[in-house]
């Protein structure tokens, strides 16, 4: 954002594109975990943002606030993702188990409570003053691809995005585990009768989703000031993404995340006054013209009031 102000107008329209895709990938990392968990367990998890915040803070703590070489930063982010996933496993066992049987709105309230708890923990452990994680020097440069110079961190984010999309598609569509996941999502009682360990599937999916949130937090850490209300600001964005994408749909989530990222980047470049509203503008438009969401299924916007 605000980079390369000295170029001619033609290139200026490409820059927001580059930037927007990077933002879109970050949004996708957070929102995909949300949609996975909702798709299988039918719990929309407010506290997902809390895990995201945790990933960012743990990255900061592991790096001790130093600028690390790129490889080490990546290693630290993965470690943070794993630590977050471990915390996720614990909450799944202790808490979410009790939420699954509740009506959707009650479980939503339960995860909302958990989000408050996360924010409190953030304040206790890291304080309310913003902390900043310096970017790795290698990620500060530009890489030239034809007419555009792409920030190397954005390029790295694209790679992560592609890796995650392909990995998730493969996992869900092609593997034995994916078959069990789809069966459980479709009908958990029948899946249990077929001999699938539904609880194990839940735990695994939850950890996977939280792992993605943790990594997302780690990758965002060098880009923003870290405060406990990261938990909230990012959850609202990812909610918008999953609702617009169609709850439970990975491809819809990807599409929506990229659209939101691009919309935001272009507004920043062209109409800065509206940039903070990109989320709401996008959501409002979708709601008016395509209420079922981009790739809506049941439970998304399209399922009209019964």
């Amino acid at each position, binding site marked *: 954002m605000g980079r390369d102000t000295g170029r001619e107008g033609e290139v200026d329209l490409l820059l927001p594109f580059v930037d927007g895709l990077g933002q879109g990938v970050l949004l996708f990392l957070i929102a995909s975990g949300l949609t996975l968990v909702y798709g299988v367990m039918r719990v*929309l998890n407010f506290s997902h943002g809390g895990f995201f915040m945790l990933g960012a803070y743990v990255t900061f703590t592991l790096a001790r606030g130093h600028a690390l070489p790129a490889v080490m930063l990546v290693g630290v982010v993965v470690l943070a993702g794993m630590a977050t996933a471990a915390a996720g496993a614990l909450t799944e066992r202790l*808490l979410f188990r*009790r*939420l699954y049987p*509740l009506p*959707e*709105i*009650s479980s*939503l*309230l*339960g995860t*909302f*409570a*958990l*989000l*408050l*708890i*996360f*924010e*409190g*923990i953030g*304040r*206790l452990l890291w304080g*309310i003053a913003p902390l900043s994680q310096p970017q790795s020097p290698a990620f500060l440069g530009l890489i030239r691809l034809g007419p555009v110079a792409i920030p190397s961190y954005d390029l790295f984010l694209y790679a992560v995005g592609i890796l995650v999309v392909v990995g998730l598609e493969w996992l869900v569509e092609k593997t034995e585990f994916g078959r069990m996941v789809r069966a459980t999502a479709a009908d958990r009682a029948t899946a249990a009768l077929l001999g699938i360990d539904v609880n194990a599937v839940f735990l695994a999916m939850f950890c996977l989703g939280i792992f993605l949130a943790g990594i997302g937090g780690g990758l965002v850490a060098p880009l923003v000031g870290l405060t406990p209300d990261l938990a*909230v600001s990012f959850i*609202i964005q990812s*909610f*918008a993404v999953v*609702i617009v994408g169609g*709850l439970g749909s990975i491809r819809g989530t990807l599409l929506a995340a990229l659209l939101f990222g691009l919309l935001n980047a272009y507004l920043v470049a062209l109409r800065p*006054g509206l940039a*903070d*509203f990109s*989320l*709401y503008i996008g*959501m*409002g438009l979708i*709601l*008016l013209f395509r*209420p079922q969401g981009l790739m809506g299924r049941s*439970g*998304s*916007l399209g*399922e*009209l*009031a*019964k």
Partner: protein
Amino acid sequence: MRARALATLALAAAIVAALLLPRLASGAQLFFWETVLVQMLYALSVNLLIGHAGIPSFGQAAFFGVGAYAVGLASALVPPPLLLLAAMLLAALLALAVGAVALRTHGIAFAMVTLAVGQALYTASLHIPALGGDNGLAGIDRGSLFAIGLGGAAAFWYLCAACVGLGILALWTVHASPFGNLLRALRDDPLRTRFLGIDVRAYRLGAFVVAGAFGGLAGGLFAYANQIVTPDALAWVRSGDPIIMALIGGMSTFWGPMLGAFVYVWVTHAFSELTPAWILYVGIVFLFFVIVLPKGLLSLLSVRRQRSGS
């Protein structure tokens, strides 16, 4: 019979307490009770939606905030009762517009859409210069009523108590009305209600507008009580707070949210003086209620009554 006598007694006690309070309480205590009253009204308005009509709104702060900013903008020009009515009207109109679109969705999607609406207004309040940005609007003038200045603590307390009392009465009437009864039916089974001849969407919209109006009244009173309004009035926690209150007291009852509001204001007041991480304890308490006591504190009472009755 006994219930009616008890209710009359409780009402009389509440009126006497409200009349005497300014003589007994310090300024800070009076302010505490004003906050409690405002939150009671606010929690009741949200519970009309979530508890009774089954409409999971996570954006009630939009209406609270609009009411608060209306008072903040016009307090120097319009006397309080008129301005509060205007705040209600404004909030109701906003609710009509928001509801007309958002009620195309339902359930969790609706919760998210209303959350986004609230956040959009919050963001707007930061950006619109006339609303004072981050600093909000300070120096709200309490004006006067029938030539009695309301700047004094006692006079304003009476105004606040009267408005909240009337608001509660109005919401109770809605609750016990044919409309209120049908809202609860509709929450239970929208399809059945539709095939009893009810236009489900219109009823939901009606509930949304009524709740919005009283949310706006609560917001307006909140602005008068604090004499300042900041974007905080629109923040998403403002949407979450009354839901927590309603849940603590008991969402399936009419009076539960009032009890919950008192408990919530009191507990947050106590904790926020002790630790900046008070939100952690609020979260824990809230979680306890969701999992262990989802019917709220009032359900304890009714269980006791049933046991001793049989």
